[in-house]
């Protein structure tokens, strides 16, 4: 499996570490209710198909990426820097 790092180009899986669904980039506001925080911390979808995940290019450039991956085929269709999405 190759992941297309925006900084490094297509790189081998062994250079990366996965960190689960990319929903963690979008924290609820401090004042959000308990339900919102409970969802954020504990509830995850389990999609059969396209998914967005955080991967760390730790043995490469060190950047966090949002990777679009299909859980049925393992096809990776894109990756962007997490800092771009977190800053948006």
């Amino acid at each position, binding site marked *: 499996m190759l992941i297309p790092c925006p*900084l*490094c*180009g*297509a*790189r*081998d899986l*062994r*250079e990366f570490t996965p960190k689960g669904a990319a929903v963690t980039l979008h924290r609820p506001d401090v004042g959000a209710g308990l339900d919102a925080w409970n969802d954020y911390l504990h509830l995850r979808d389990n999609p059969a198909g396209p998914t967005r995940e955080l991967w760390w290019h730790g*043995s*490469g*450039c*060190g*950047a966090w990426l949002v990777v679009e991956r299909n859980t049925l085929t393992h096809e990776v269709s894109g990756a962007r820097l997490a800092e771009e999405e977190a800053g948006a």
Partner: protein
Amino acid sequence: MTVLTPQRALDGQELRHGNLQLSTVALGRVTWVAPYPGEETALSHALQSACSMSFPGPGESRESTAGRILWSGRAQALLIGPHPSAAIEKCAAVVDQTDGWAAMRLGGASAAQVLARLTPLDLRPSHFPRGRTARSLLGHVPVLLVAIENGFEIFVMRSMSETVRHEIETAMRSTAAREKIPTAHA
């Protein structure tokens, strides 16, 4: 007063197997440079006036009479040779890592075949031409690879340099041995 003599990591003989040579590289001063957020352009200007080099983009390196600067990861680079100017220190985090790194040079026609046994990088000249840099793994060790004329430079944390040299030497032996096998003609 006691005078301490600096000792390089990886002192010793150059290794030769077949067309391959592995030698150590004397780096001199090594400075880790990471621009503060929003200061990338200012850093590039400071580098330009102090060392006649701009800050390298991802996977790039620059060279001047003052020395070299090698991209070494997201928003960071290694400045090899010159001491950083005060203007550089104003717009970037700057750390002297001279004693933290060791470097080797692997040369020879089959240098890429040797490293292909150890790293997942695509080392073909079309993908990794001279002057390109890449962070990757060599065996299980994190390294910074630089494509140079007729070979590669391998930068590694000093504490793991003997391991890396051993890994490379083993791969050099195998690669050189394979090249002695006569090619079968159909």
